[in-house]
C-alpha cells in the first residue's frame, strides 16, 4: 500500500475523532475523541517516516505518544476536579466563564 492509503486512513480517523469532540456531551467522551485525533496524527508521522526512509518521524512519534499520555492524565485530573466542584461532567453545564 502506498503512502496515500495510510494518510487517507489517518484523515478518516481524525475526522471521526473531530466529530466526537464536537458532538459529545460528556467531558470524558470529548477526551476520548481527542485521543483518537492524536492517534491519527501518530499514524501520519510513522507513515511519512517509513516512506521517506528516515527514522526521525518515528522519534517524533515517541515524543508525541509520551506527551499525549501526560495530556490524558492531566485532562482527566481536571475532569475529576471539575466534578468535585460542579458535581457534573457534562460540558453543557460547565459554563463558569459565561459571567
Amino acid at each position, binding site marked *: 500500500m502506498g503512502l*496515500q492509503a495510510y494518510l487517507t486512513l489517518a484523515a478518516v480517523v481524525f475526522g471521526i475523532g473531530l466529530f466526537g469532540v464536537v458532538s459529545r456531551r460528556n467531558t470524558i467522551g470529548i477526551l476520548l475523541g481527542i485521543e*483518537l485525533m492524536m492517534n491519527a496524527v501518530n499514524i501520519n508521522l510513522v507513515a511519512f517516516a517509513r516512506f521517506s526512509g528516515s527514522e526521525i518521524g518515528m522519534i517524533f512519534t515517541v515524543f508525541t505518544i509520551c506527551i499525549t499520555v501526560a495530556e490524558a492524565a492531566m485532562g482527566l485530573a481536571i475532569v475529576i476536579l471539575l466534578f468535585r466542584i460542579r458535581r457534573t461532567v457534562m460540558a453543557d453545564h460547565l459554563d463558569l466563564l459565561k459571567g
Partner: protein
Amino acid sequence: MTETIAFWALAVVLVGSALAVVLTKNLFHSVLWLALALTGTAGVFLLLNAEFLAAVQLLLYAGGVITIVVFAIVVTERLVGERISHTNRRITAGALTSLAFVALVVNTLARQPLAVDPKPVAADVTRLLGESILTRFVLPFELLGVLMLAAMLGAVYFARPED
C-alpha cells in the same frame, strides 16, 4: 499481497472501532472500543516496520490511558449515581464539520505526487531510534522528562485531599 489484506483488515477495524467510540451510548463501552482502536493503530505501526512504536503504543495507550479513563469514569459516575450513558448533540453540524475536513484532506492528498513504495530502512530500527534519542535528540528527551515530572506533580496536586 499479504500487506494489502492486512492493511484493509486493520483499516476496517480502526475505522469501525473509532466510529463506535464516538457513537456508543454507554461511556464504558466507548472506552473499550477506544482500546480496540488503539490496538489497531499498534497493528498499523507493525505494518509500517515500527515494532518498537507498536510496543510503546500498547504499553502506554492501551495499558496506561485506558486504565486512567476507566478510573475517571468510576470516580465521576459512581458518586453522581447517574447511568453511565452519554449522548451526542448537534450531530448534523458535527458530521458536516468532520466530513468537510476529511473531504478537504483526501482531495488534497489525491492531487499530490506521493511515494508508492516504502524506502528501505535500517535492519534494526529500534537500535537506530535508541541511538538517535540519546545523541541527536537528547535535549528534547530531557525536556520530556521535565514535562513528565510536571504532569506528575500536577496530578498529585489535583488529587490532594480537600481541606
